């Protein structure tokens, strides 16, 4: 067993953190996106034959945790998850698009997972259905989605700029996570994987969301503790008040355990895929809860200032909410855990 991060992984974290501290913006035209492309981070998990770095899900998680911490609004999570999925695919389309994804010329992503009843249906080359609340939808050139073809679940790829695909950008409360609705009406599609590949893609997505959220939750705690150390009321730092200390301790337990759970799932998607079927949805559910709790307390423990637009607390709070409600939502993700753990039929 080898629990820690190695030197290269620690270097990667430092590099990404430095980058995100320096560069800002949102979306595909932003300076931060340009630097992410330049550093080759988009191909981090993609095999070298497609121009990637061939690293594992752990390295991907390191970048995601930092993006969560900074709440950077770029389509990195979606693109790298899609690229990882395609890198495992034998479909010819994978080899065609992967260089563009690695270079950042193309942006791809997964449709929001959910119950089978919401999947598009059709043939192996044309799909019909509605894909709603697709995260980073306004940016996507390529959309991956589980679909029902002749009664079987497959993983399909759909280009977004073709006839048969109508995209509507949705306004969002969490402005760091844009969304679109896609209406597929006999949209041209190619199959890139079977039902197992579709399930693994969702597991990867959920683990990625978990580790991103864990990074964000950790930042909420750090920022809150820093505030309490310096802000004075009643003639002394707020952080000396025992009631607040004890609440921070409970948050620390939540953050530490969410962090461990997210990393376990992130490692498992590559390191032990069979167990990821449980640990990935479990991590998503647990980290979303933890993130909502700590972001809520971040506002509360900052007092009035935490309630202003100017202070970043609300951005974490809105991100935490969207993390919980999107990606299948709370009930569906928990039902995955319950069924896969054998707790429910």
């Amino acid at each position, binding site marked *: 067993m080898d629990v820690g991060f190695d030197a290269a992984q620690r270097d990667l974290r430092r590099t990404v953190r430095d980058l995100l501290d320096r560069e800002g913006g949102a979306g595909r035209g932003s300076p931060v996106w340009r630097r992410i492309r330049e550093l080759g981070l988009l191909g981090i998990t993609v095999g070298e034959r497609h121009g990637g770095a061939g690293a594992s899900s752990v390295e991907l998680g390191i970048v995601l945790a930092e993006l969560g911490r900074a709440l950077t609004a770029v389509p990195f999570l979606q693109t790298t998850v899609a690229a990882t999925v395609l890198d495992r695919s034998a479909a010819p389309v994978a080899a065609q698009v992967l260089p563009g994804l690695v270079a950042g010329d193309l942006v791809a992503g997964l449709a*929001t997972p959910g119950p089978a009843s919401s999947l598009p249906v059709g043939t192996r080359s044309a799909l019909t259905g509605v894909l*709603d*609340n697709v995260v980073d939808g306004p940016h996507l050139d390529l959309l991956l989605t589980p679909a029902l073809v002749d009664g079987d679940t497959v993983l399909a790829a759909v280009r977004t700029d073709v006839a048969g695909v109508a995209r509507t950008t*949705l*306004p*969002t*409360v*969490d*402005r760091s*996570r844009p*969304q679109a609705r896609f209406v597929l009406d006999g949209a041209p599609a190619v199959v890139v994987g079977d039902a197992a590949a579709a399930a693994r893609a969702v597991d990867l997505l959920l683990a990625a969301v978990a580790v991103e959220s864990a990074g964000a939750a950790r930042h909420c705690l750090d920022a809150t503790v820093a505030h309490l150390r310096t802000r*004075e*009321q*009643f*003639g*002394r730092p707020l952080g000396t008040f025992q*009631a*607040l200390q004890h609440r921070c301790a409970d948050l620390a337990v939540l953050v530490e355990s969410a962090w461990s759970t997210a990393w376990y799932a992130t490692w498992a998607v590559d390191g032990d895929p069979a167990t990821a079927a449980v640990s990935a949805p479990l991590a998503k559910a647990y980290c979303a809860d933890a993130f909502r709790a700590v972001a*809520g307390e971040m*506002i*509360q423990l900052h*007092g*009035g200032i*935490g*309630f*202003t*637009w*100017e202070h970043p*607390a*609300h951005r974490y*709070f*809105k991100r935490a*909410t*969207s993390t919980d*409600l*999107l990606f299948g*939502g*709370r*009930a569906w993700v928990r039902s995955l855990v319950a069924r896969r753990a054998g707790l429910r039929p």
Partner: protein
Amino acid sequence: MDLRFDEADEAFRREVACWLATALTGEFAELVDAGGPGREHEHLQARKAWERRLGRDGWIGLGWPEADGGRGLSWERQVIFHEECARAGAPGRVGHIGEQLLGPTLLMFGTAEQKARFLPGILDGTRLWCQGYSEPGAGSDLAAVRTRAELRGGEWHVDGQKVWTSLATEADWCFVLARTEPGSLRHRGLSCLLVPMDQPGVDVRPIVQLTGTSEFNEVFFDDARAARDDVVGAPGEGWKVAMGTLAVERGVSTFGQQMGFAREFERVLAAARATGAADDPVLAERLLDSWMQLQVLRYTAVMTLGAPAGSTPGTEANVAKLMWAPWHRRLGELAVDVLGAAGTVAAGPGVDELTPAQRLHLFTRADTIYGGSDEVQRTVIAQRMLGLPRGPA
């Protein structure tokens, strides 16, 4: 013990309901459900007109003594008035700071001359007030007030900054807690001054909230002036006056607030039924919890409002706040949770274009902070109600 309203009270309820049904029409029809916490920016001109209409028809100062221009009605009738207003969706008040905070403070501490000068403008809904207590360094710790006022040339010169001042953009006057004895510490040396807002030394800057809207403000005083006699209570007794104001916050209006909560709950329930979330067992249980807690809020208000003084002196309001604020915040969470993914989609692209559920979700984060944070309420309850000893320092 009899926890019902009597028949005469119920007749009064019908009178209020009839008046509201008539009055909330025409120019005021657009005001149904407008205003109030989280929506304070809506329809301000029409709500000011509504305030004058209330005053004209005798619905302001119901519980004030008749000698002071009020109607001297029982607390039951005041409760009924607030309940019926909430039930009818009457708009959030813009005159409530005058009626419910400054007015009672003047009735307790004001001189006859002050009452004669200031109460009529409140009672007829023409003069609006805001409250200048909190400061950037004095939120939970009100005794850390640093705004100072000095009596020079026959008037008070006021300098400092207040914050979280609701409706300051609309108010004609502000009652300001200021340090009038230079070098005084904590609770000593403070005074409560009545300061006109329309003067060069007063600058109001709205605070943009996490909802993208503004209803709280910063108020800057830069050599602002107040008349020598416009101090409530004796100079230096501001702490006593301020504590008196805070003690009257809430009370009979609680019932109206709860009726408003019930309307909000009904909307959340309707959304849950529309989306099917009401059939999800976990959400159904949260809806039931929320509804049950709302009844508990009401039972508790009924049982404590009329309780003989002295049982748990003065801490009923703290208990009530620590019940409703977290409840309301949880209702906000439930409001978006029953919508699921749709709860993350805004009403439009503008930063302030939120759906009612999202506004509830975001704005209720303030409920546990303003008006005495949950943490302050807990300390007050522990020390004043339970008698637990203060710690060191």
